[in-house]
């Protein structure tokens, strides 16, 4: 059973309240809107996995809302709720991309099964995307590069904390290199000959994360045909890197806290205790203290993780490292693509120094990769960089970070024909961050 973020859109208060309560008890995060207009407003700030929409509403109809949602966020599952007399509209909704329709009143089991099916479906899509990205990450692994004071301080800190056994919490924006810092700590630690095992906690639905971490005994559940070691076991003698730790469920926090306290764990369905001989490094781009106040992160687990902590600086705070990083990426991608590109023009470098890089080092890396591919000569010119597409260049007067970011988002989205997954990858951010940015900047897809 997974949980989802659900928005109920219905103009009847009693439906919103009672259905909302039912879904909350089922563990879902629920919000409500009394009209299509309010739903679109809420979706500017929050990304929902599922929308339950009443077809007949005052003002914007459920069908119009469906069309508007599908234009900006095609991955959201929209379930239409309809009365017996409106089945033809429901079928029309299916043609317009609705996931399913429910005839009211419906059996509670019908709703439960449908939501589980949607969660499963969305989790599979996410996992596939994660596996692709993981493959790419593996093939690109680099050591940390930087001569700026900000990074020198990080290097010095890593030197100091690496020899200890303490748990480390690394915070920082997406793309700042939290994973590289974790790897660097491992490489300089007495455990460097042991494995460095990465778990992207945000990429797995809860039940998969549990078996992925703890492993399972043959027969522990229907699909457990053989015994499988979990990542905790695979990290024996080395370091366990828990990336996106802010995404894990309360249940998993309870389990991991117990492992960190007792230093033993069990495979699912297993009775033999297994020694937890690994060092834990966790990373997040979330504000965990805020999450504690909101009740989504356990305080005791936070203090167990936060023995030593540091924050990776955003690239805009150590721009002096851009030339070095850019040169490094240039040579690597030129080698990988077998292209004779070996220079970055002065103009291109100047523009890169002016840009704010909201996606940080990962965005710079992706920009150089693209530039190497599209570059016609030996030298990268401003036009080769994705940040200098026409939409971006058309903003000569207002160079505020907000406007520059907006223009860059439009540029990348148009370039990728509004394919969110592809655009997010190019920007070096995750899809939900991109959705949030689209909404925050009020960007809409050109008709």
């Amino acid at each position, binding site marked *: 059973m997974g949980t989802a973020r659900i928005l109920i859109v219905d103009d*009847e208060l*009693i439906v919103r309240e009672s259905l909302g*309560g039912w879904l909350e008890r*089922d*563990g879902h995060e629920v919000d409500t809107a009394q009209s299509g207009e309010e739903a679109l407003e809420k979706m500017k700030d929050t990304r929902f996995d599922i929308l339950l929409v009443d077809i007949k509403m005052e003002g914007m109809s459920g069908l119009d809302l469906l069309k508007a949602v599908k234009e900006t966020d095609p991955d959201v599952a929209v379930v239409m709720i309809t009365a017996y007399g409106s089945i033809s509209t429901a079928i029309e909704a299916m043609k317009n991309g609705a996931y399913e329709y*429910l005839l009211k*009143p*419906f*059996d509670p089991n019908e709703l439960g099964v449908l939501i589980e099916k949607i969660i499963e479906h969305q989790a599979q899509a996410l996992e596939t995307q994660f596996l692709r990205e993981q493959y790419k990450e593996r093939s690109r692994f680099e050591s940390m590069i930087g001569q700026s004071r900000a990074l020198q301080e990080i290097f010095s800190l890593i030197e100091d904390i690496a020899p200890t056994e303490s748990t480390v919490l690394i915070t920082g924006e997406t793309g700042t290199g939290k994973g590289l810092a974790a790897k660097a700590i491992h490489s300089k630690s007495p455990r460097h000959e042991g494995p460095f095992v990465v778990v992207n906690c945000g990429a797995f639905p809860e039940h998969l994360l549990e078996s992925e971490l703890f492993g399972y005994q043959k027969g522990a559940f229907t699909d457990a045909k053989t015994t499988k070691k979990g990542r905790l076991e695979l990290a024996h003698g080395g370091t366990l890197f828990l990336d996106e730790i802010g995404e894990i469920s309360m249940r998993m926090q*309870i389990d991991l806290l117990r492992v960190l306290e007792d230093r033993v764990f069990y495979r699912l369905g297993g009775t033999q205790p297994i020694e937890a001989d690994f060092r834990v490094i966790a990373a997040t781009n979330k504000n965990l203290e805020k999450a504690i106040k909101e009740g989504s992160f356990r305080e005791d687990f936070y203090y167990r993780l936060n023995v030593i902590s540091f924050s990776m600086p955003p690239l805009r705070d150590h721009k002096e490292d851009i030339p070095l990083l850019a040169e490094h990426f240039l040579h690597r991608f030129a080698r990988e693509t077998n292209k004779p590109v070996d220079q970055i023009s002065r103009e291109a470098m100047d523009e890169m120094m002016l840009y704010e890089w909201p996606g940080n080092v990962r965005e710079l890396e992706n920009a150089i990769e693209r530039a190497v591919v599209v570059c016609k000569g030996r030298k990268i010119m401003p036009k080769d960089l994705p940040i200098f597409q026409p939409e971006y260049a058309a903003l000569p007067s207002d160079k505020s970070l907000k406007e520059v970011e907006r223009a860059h988002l439009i540029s990348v989205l148009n370039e990728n024909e509004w394919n969110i997954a592809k655009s997010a990858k190019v920007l070096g951010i995750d899809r939900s961050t991109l959705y949030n940015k689209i909404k925050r900047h009020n960007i809409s897809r050109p008709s």
Partner: protein
Amino acid sequence: MNARPKNTILVSPVGDLDLDSEFLHELCDKISEIFGCECEIMPLLKEIDFARDPVRDQHHSTLLLERLSALAPHRVLKVLAITTVDLFIPVLTYVYGEAQLGGKSSIISTYRLQETHSAKVTPATYQCRILKEAIHELGHTFGLRHCPNESCIMHYCRKIQDVDRKSTELCRYCKVLLSDEMKRLASE
């Protein structure tokens, strides 16, 4: 000086129940054991026609919960009402019960707990189902949500067979979450 903390859970029969008082006291004991609170039996609702939908011939549980919360004495921490009428919430055909998540009131209906999947349901099985549903709905008022562990009492059961299969206890995760909530309530 701090006011005395509320520490009473009220089991509140609605109308005539097909349950003897011995069972209701057993239920109270189990509630006290799980939630660590005192438990009393006291009717609160004299009539429930205000919540009846004549077309569906069912009672709207959300309205009943609102009334229960309004009527509960101040010293009461949580309320569990038990009724024999069939309950619904709009858009759903029926519910076994409903609770205010992290709130004061909960209600269960015995109407569908007589359902049988094999031979005639025995009084012991029927009472065990009532006990499980009662603890389950009360669990919601302490902020507990549905649990994926099939043997945990907070597991959401799609079929009556699943209710029979689950235990009368909270799993270890739900125990931790309940204990967190108890600590929070004590500090209020």
